[in-house]
């Protein structure tokens, strides 16, 4: 895997030169792709009229779904950070038996189709399974309850959280921690004074990206907890129940939230990997 992101590469210092002919062909092919991504989003945004957005604010179900989505995503992200950042720190540290396996496991959800994740979570956390049954006895109901939404969101955002934080920790020159130790820091003090401050920006970027991922989740939630509805499920529900037009305003609102988050993430982390 190459390591040099372009924004730090030596080519940055080269002045702009007008492209030659072969570059024009490449640019043409690339432009099709850019248009294919930007076109639909722009087209959707252009459907936003002042009236329709005002209407969105009076749509109680939509507003409730947005609060639910943001709250559940925040809960999933905080829980994920609590469990995932320590794991990332361990994965970035000294090798230990099984490290490669664990790293593979936490990255798995990237390739798991979301309805499959939904089915798997439903089986695992449903009342008939040992785990789900035990958790049900202490009052944690997942299926068709808010904890199910949080669980689905957490499942899909684990790779982002753990890998992002791991890269942030691993990118710190180990000499710095050694220097801090030789200057009198205990391992804990060294973590607080050097490791954490230096990794914090990368961790924050991973947490934001995980939050955005949680907000946009649909496929696993729609199976685990259709009701109460998060916004992505609401969009799907409106679309299947009332048709395309009914889904446009909720879609625009969720798109705007996603764009705002994207802006924040780009600010925290100039180039999103992957």
């Amino acid at each position: 895997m190459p390591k040099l992101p372009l924004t730090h590469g030596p080519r940055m210092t080269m002045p702009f030169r007008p492209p030659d002919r072969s570059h024009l062909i490449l640019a043409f092919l690339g432009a099709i792709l850019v248009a294919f991504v930007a076109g639909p989003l722009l087209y959707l945004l252009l459907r936003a009229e002042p009236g329709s957005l005002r209407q969105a604010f009076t749509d109680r179900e939509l507003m409730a779904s947005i609060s639910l989505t943001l709250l559940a995503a925040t809960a999933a992200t905080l829980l994920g950070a609590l469990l995932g950042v320590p794991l990332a720190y361990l994965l970035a540290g000294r090798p230990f038996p099984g490290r490669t396996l664990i790293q593979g496991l936490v990255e798995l959800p990237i390739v798991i189709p979301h309805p499959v994740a939904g089915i798997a979570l439903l089986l695992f956390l449903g009342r008939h399974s040992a785990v789900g049954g035990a958790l049900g006895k202490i009052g944690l109901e997942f299926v068709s309850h808010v904890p199910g939404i949080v669980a689905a969101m957490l499942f899909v955002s684990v790779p982002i959280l753990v890998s992002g934080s791991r890269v942030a920790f691993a990118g710190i020159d180990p000499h710095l921690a050694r220097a801090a130790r030789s200057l009198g820091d205990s391992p804990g003090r060294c973590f607080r004074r050097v490791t954490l401050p230096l990794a914090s920006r990368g961790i924050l970027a991973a947490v934001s990206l995980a939050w955005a991922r949680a907000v946009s989740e649909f496929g696993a939630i729609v199976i685990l907890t259709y009701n109460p509805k998060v916004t992505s499920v609401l969009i799907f529900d409106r679309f299947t129940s009332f048709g395309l037009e009914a889904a446009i305003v909720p879609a625009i609102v969720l798109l705007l939230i996603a764009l705002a988050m994207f802006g924040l993430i780009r600010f925290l982390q100039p180039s999103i990997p992957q």
Partner: protein
Amino acid sequence: MIRLEGIDVRLGQFALRDVSFEIPPAGYGLLIGPTGSGKTSVLEAIAGHSPLGRGRILLHGKDVTAVPPEHRGVGVVYQQNNLFPHLSVAENIRYGLAHGDLSVADQKARVGELADSLGLGHILERGVANLSGGEAQRVGLARALAPRPSVLLLDEPFASLDPATRFALRQQLLDLHRREGVTTLQVTHDFQEALQLGNLVAVMSEGRIVQHGRPEEVFRHPNSSFVARFIGAANVIEGIVTRVGDAEGADRQFAARFSAGSVTLDVIADREGLLNAVIHPEDIVLNHRPTGGSARNQLPATVTAVELAGPVTYIHLDAGYPLRAAVTSASAESMGLAPGVSLFATVKATAIRLV
């Protein structure tokens, strides 16, 4: 005092084996060797960053083998990427003072004192990102010295600096070493640095120490062709030594003949067989005509290149074997030494060391 007693360290494929040496209190030792010979690993072991397989480490008489890095009282300066990027110059220097019972005023005084010695006063409030290489290394040095460590470890602190900056920093380092009296061990791959700085040098190769002693001693009397070649200052010729006389001195030495290709030299040897002759450039005397007298190793030679190096000039010769002789630049000029000139190179038998 730094004392290593037969330490072994395993680091993946690489290993340090049976490394022992001692640097007296307030001494200045140098560890030299090619890339990958294990110099840095020795520093890491002394600083407490890699567990020993065997042996022990004593600092000022105290066995620190099982002591964690933060309680060893060791200051370390790495080759680069040394400073905390999220802290200012002053905060970097003060980093190690947060643990002691120094008042804030005393901490500031210590930072100011070191900043003055190293000429850092004007950049104390800056971030460390845009420092020049020399400034960064001076800040690293100040940070390491601030908590008054009993031992200072330097990992090629001059390697990425310009010669002029390197020279200036070397002077400041020597001054500071004298003033603070801290026992110092520096890693370098440059033997010249060892000659200029240290009062003890240990030469490493493949995880072992192959020679140690006073720098001048190692320079004059390398104990192997590896050391002779590595310090780069001498001619090293591989050849066969055969005894020519029966007489043997008190130290079991005898007169012998050294043959390498067309070159034959009279030498004093203590064993026969395949050996390396080490001849220092300044021990080769050049004359236009053969001289009489006692020196019998007189080789006809042709100048192949003339290399001015400040006050001395190195004359590269073809004497059946490539040789490098050192003469003063003044005599190089007065003798008209230039490529193509034929002359005679004379070496006294006692100036040829066999290893």
